[in-house]
């Protein structure tokens, strides 16, 4: 069960980071009329279409002990980023970014600008209006973003394999463990973990759609 808990830990940390960093990014994407907006939009969406191995490969290069970020990390902490939990978190954040950004961006885009203008004229600064009006009114987008990034991180395999490897307790997440069990023909163990993932994925998505429907009918 250790891989399962590691997966949940990884997905939780990734989700929290993605919501915190993804919200301002989504806000910018939803409000900006800059000519860079479509460029950033495309970059954010790339992990959806790229094979995970491509992302994994470049992350391995950049995060590795001789890479731009990896070497700096080694100087700072003495540890390598690749084949570590922190490295996995960085990889997961990039890999799941579009799943966090798109629901939040959609929610922000459906807000009425006049509603925000009302908040500003009532004395709320831009940041205050964002936190007190835009975020609560976009709560559906935040829930979708959290569920999707959590579930998507839980389900990743290729990137994790390339960046994290298979170190028990550190990078051996549930998808790797299942692959391992199959490799060693331990079908019973593979089945146990897979069933847990199937049930979880269904419950999470079902809960999200149910919640969405209830909010819609309000």
């Amino acid at each position, binding site marked *: 069960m250790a891989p399962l808990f590691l997966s949940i830990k990884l997905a939780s940390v990734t989700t929290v980071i993605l919501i915190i960093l993804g919200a301002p990014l989504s806000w910018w994407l939803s409000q900006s009329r800059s000519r860079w907006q479509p460029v950033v939009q495309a970059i954010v969406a790339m992990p959806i279409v790229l094979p995970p191995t491509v992302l994994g490969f470049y992350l391995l290069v950049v995060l590795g002990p001789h890479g731009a970020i990896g070497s700096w990390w080694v100087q700072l902490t003495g540890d390598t980023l690749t084949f570590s939990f922190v490295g996995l978190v960085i990889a997961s954040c990039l890999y799941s970014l579009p799943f966090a950004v798109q629901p939040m961006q959609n929610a922000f885009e459906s807000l*009425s600008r*006049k*509603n925000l*203008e*009302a*908040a*500003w*004229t*009532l*004395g*709320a*600064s*831009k940041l*205050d*209006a964002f936190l*007190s*009006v835009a975020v*609560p*009114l976009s*709560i559906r987008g935040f829930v979708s973003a959290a569920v999707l990034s959590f579930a998507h991180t839980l389900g990743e395999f290729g990137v994790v394999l390339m960046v994290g490897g298979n170190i028990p307790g550190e990078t051996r997440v549930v998808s790797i463990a299942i692959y391992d069990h199959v490799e060693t023909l331990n079908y019973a163990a593979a089945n146990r973990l897979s069933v847990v993932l199937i049930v979880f994925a269904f419950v999470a998505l079902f809960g999200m759609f149910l919640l969405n429907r209830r909010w819609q009918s*309000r």
Partner: protein
Amino acid sequence: MSRIRLKHSIRKGDFCLDVDTDIPATGITGVFGESGSGKTTLLRCIAGLDGSQHGLPPVHERRIGFVFQVPQLFSHLSVQKNIEYGMRRNSDAVVSVNEIARLLEVDGLLDRSVTELSGGEAQRVSIARVLCQSPRLILMDEPLSALDERRRNEVLPYLDRLHAETSVPIIYVSHNIDEICRLSDHLLVLDDGKVVAEGGLQDTLTRIDLPQLGGRNSGAVIEATQARYDEDYDLTLFSFSGGELWVAGRHESTSARLRISASDISLSRVAAESTTILNILPAIIESTLPETAATELVQLRLGDDILVARITRRSLQQMKLCAGDEIFVQIKSVTVRR
């Protein structure tokens, strides 16, 4: 009397707003103009939502209340939380939420969700919300235009009350001359982004040289006091500087603002005796101006007040009416605006 300077210019595609004027720092200033004349843009510039804001404080530090056409309540907050939103963000706002809620009669709605409110209630809540931020100036952008006739009448009396009970200057934008006549003390007429007239309501309304105030918009308002009520015929007699006027129905207020449309006045050289028209008063012609090929507008002085009449050019010529002539005005209908 102190005044508020309005100096704003902004270009939006083909449209260009260029305003440089000042308005009194008390009462309600009506901003009248056709749609597309730049009324809303002017308000947005004053609030800091549009236009160059170089060197000016940001929107949220201006303390300028903005009442939008659609109330713009925050749907995730209760009525009470909505009303308190601005107050919490202006720490020196010394207001009583209860008092303001009572003024607008939304005190019974405080616990409700804003999604349960009718259009008229929602607009009243949004006005209460603006008052609670204790603004230095209130901007109202056609606050009644999104409401149907019945809902409009649910809000209008509260605007009257607001006018009577608050000292905060209000700029009220509308393309509805009746609302302007009822609410404002001062009038600013906009056309294609420029101020074409500005002054006291009565003086400005009775200018006959402004095509923006022509057509069905032409007419005058006069301030009158109630003289007596005739129970037998259900008529109220009002007196003003130019004489007395009978108005149908019973009116409670001792002082009233009466609206007389230019099309409801006809002129006669003699005081007709056998006529159904109740109100016939002596007047002096101030000036005349051709309006269309068929019609003329005539400015008439009655005491200290001015009325405007629309007559045909033919009548003007046949009766040889000129400025300075003494004449009788026959007033077919008078409406009480306040």
